């Protein structure tokens, strides 16, 4: 048993933090925040290429594909630190598509894509959700017809967030239209987002971020862009979730630290807020829950490093961590009181308006990548064997 990083891991953690701090620019931090921590903007690309050059974007990948053959613990730690230090930490190509290609892709596909992904040269956008296919992804309809030397795509995607800044669409499509079990007719493919026939329209969220509606009209996709086998896409997609479903709390942990500092520095009625019993209780409780999240988070890495596959544990970590983001921001809003509502560019704004901004963004965390309700179904059904 051991719940701490090794000496080497700690040194590595320091190296990562120092590098990030040295390379970070105000422009990059602003861009990352404005876009909702996704990767693909010009400033983000600059720094991520430097991170990738050190092998830190895909540390667990084999060296031949641009990785370091490092442990999952190291990989999880890097992601956590990237989040804490304000870098983009939501990667589709490096964290979802790449591992799927490694597991299920052909040799040609690996050679064609993995080096470009691990170097930070390309980013994918997740292409799963459709208007009628949210929690029930198997209901997706976007048609991909086999036209001999290519697929012809027609249909709509909704809430496909990175499409306006990413290079390629990691797209789940329907290739069998009559199967009795809808999930058996789904395939995965990589689509150039600049292909003729693709229209990307913005949808603006309450947090100010952009997400997208994407319309496919007679879009031609080369056959070699099919991932693995045809009609096996749902399986790949689910396997990817088993391996990759996790939520690094870092960015909200940073916010918590800033709220703690605010409570210590802010004097009300002649004494710091941090000396008020109720505030102490609330902040102590959050710090406990952050510690709980740390254990759940690295448990996933531990399971993977042992050669296992996290099962319900990933759903548990995702749910616990994302629900905690809402408690952190809510306590932050309460502690800031009337100041909490002031936006970044307002006179008298505190903590650069960060608390209200994160308060808004936290709403979606328990919805994206599987709602808390879907996660609880998984915990009950896969973790405890209750009936589906």
């Amino acid at each position, binding site marked *: 048993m051991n719940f701490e990083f090794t000496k080497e891991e700690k040194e590595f953690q320091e190296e990562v933090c120092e590098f990030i701090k040295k390379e970070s620019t105000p422009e990059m931090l602003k861009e990352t925040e404005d876009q909702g921590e996704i990767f693909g903007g010009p400033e983000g690309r600059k720094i991520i290429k430097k991170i990738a050059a050190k092998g830190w974007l895909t540390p667990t990948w084999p060296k031949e594909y641009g990785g370091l053959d490092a442990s999952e613990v190291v990989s999880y730690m890097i992601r956590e630190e990237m989040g804490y230090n304000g870098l983009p930490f939501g990667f589709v190509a490096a964290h979802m598509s790449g591992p799927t290609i490694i597991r299920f892709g052909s040799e040609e596909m690996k050679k064609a894509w993995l080096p470009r992904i691990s170097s930070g040269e390309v980013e994918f956008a997740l292409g799963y959700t459709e208007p009628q296919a949210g929690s029930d992804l198997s209901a997706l309809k976007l048609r991909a017809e086999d036209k001999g030397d290519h697929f012809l795509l027609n249909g709509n995607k909704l809430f496909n967030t990175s499409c306006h800044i990413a290079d390629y669409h990691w797209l789940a499509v329907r290739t069998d239209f009559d199967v009795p079990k809808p999930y058996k007719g789904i395939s995965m493919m990589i689509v150039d987002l600049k292909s003729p026939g693709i229209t990307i329209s913005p949808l603006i969220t309450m947090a100010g971020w952009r997400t997208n509606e994407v319309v496919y009209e007679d879009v031609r996709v080369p056959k070699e862009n099919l991932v693995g086998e045809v009609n096996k896409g749902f399986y790949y997609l689910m396997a990817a979730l088993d391996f990759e479903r996790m939520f690094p709390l870092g960015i909200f942990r940073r916010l918590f630290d800033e709220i703690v500092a605010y409570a210590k520095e802010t004097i009300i009625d002649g004494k710091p807020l941090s000396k008020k019993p109720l505030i102490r*209780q609330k902040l102590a409780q959050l710090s406990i829950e952050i510690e709980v999240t740390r254990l759940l988070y690295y448990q996933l890495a531990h399971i993977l490093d042992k050669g296992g596959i996290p099962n319900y544990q990933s759903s548990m970590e995702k749910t616990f961590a994302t629900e905690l983001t809402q408690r952190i921001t809510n306590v932050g809003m309460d502690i800031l009181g009337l100041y909490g509502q002031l936006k970044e560019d307002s006179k008298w704004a505190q903590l650069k308006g960060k608390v209200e901004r994160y308060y808004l963004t936290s709403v979606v965390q328990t919805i994206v990548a599987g709602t808390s309700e879907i996660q609880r179904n998984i915990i009950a059904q896969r973790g405890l064997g209750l009936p589906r």
Partner: protein
Amino acid sequence: MDYDFNEEQELLKNAAKGFLSKECKPLFVREMEEDTKGITDELWQKMAELGWMGLMFPEQCGGVGGSYLDLIVLLTEMGYSCLPGPFFSTVVLAGTTIMESENEEMKQKLLPEIAEGKMFVTLALTETTAGYSPDMISVKAQKDGNDFIINGTKLFVPDAHIANQIICVARTKEGEKKEDGITLFLVDANSKGIEVTSLKTFAGDKMGEVVFNNVNVSNTNVLGEIDKGWSIIKKVLQKASIGKCAEMVGGGQRALELVLEQATEREQFGVKVGSFQAVQHHCANILTYLDTSRLMTRQAAWRISEGLPCEREVSMTKAWVSDSCRNLIALSHQSVGGTGFMEEHDLQLYFRRTKAAGVYFGDADYHREIVADAIGL
């Protein structure tokens, strides 16, 4: 990082589970709640023969030489089976106090007797203020030549009714700093001037009021240094807090099993109740409370066992586990339904014990305040 117990610990866990499932059935647990002694000699001797009492004592003191982490394995299983009796008071509280006192003579004298199951010892710490801070120690030990005279009342003393020896935490000096001036005395329970009155507790465990009325104790019976006893008690409280967490985790595991029995067997509206999402989400929350409590307990126990700084982690864990396991049991009752409210259903055993363990050695509020200090508030 390695979250797992080692092979020996897994063996110990399975052996304990097997033994307790035979020797400590729910009916026996209920009988011992009513029993004045609260334990049978037979079971106590069997546990001693298994080496449980001496598990973490050094070999030269008749022990097994195991670690605190090993003890946590055992306590988890004891919580699972609601083991009655004075194991916690004699081994975890008194045993730890004696070990931490680093008094070789006392260790040689007492630990082998405890290990063999021949002696019950308890720790008389709390008083009518019912708290765990040093300023709450007011029972006085006045120097009288080579002896001390103890006066005052100790409350919530576990298993005082059967203890052969009582470790009394007494004030020997009034000073500026409240943790100074506290001394630990080993007192023969049959000493003149000691009066024990049993309290009736809702969890069925045995606690007593111990009144010290001019009780004479020799200075050779001091554990640790005079006036410096609180540093020992601080360590004992850490180990005891996490020990209670382990019991709650074990109990939580059993509660979850009871819920799953009901969810997979009982039908309503023509289907198993466990197929309803409302019930499934309760179950998912129960498992989350349980897993997180287990992880926190393991981490804190590991840190204690390794001698690493652990004040923050111990209080985080006691706060989290006390709250979570209470919530876990509440959801269990809601999931099992009316059957679970019946005396004959075992869930009520865990309901009572979990609350008692939650307030023992400081409830969540108390420990959150320590965490607040630890994170610099």
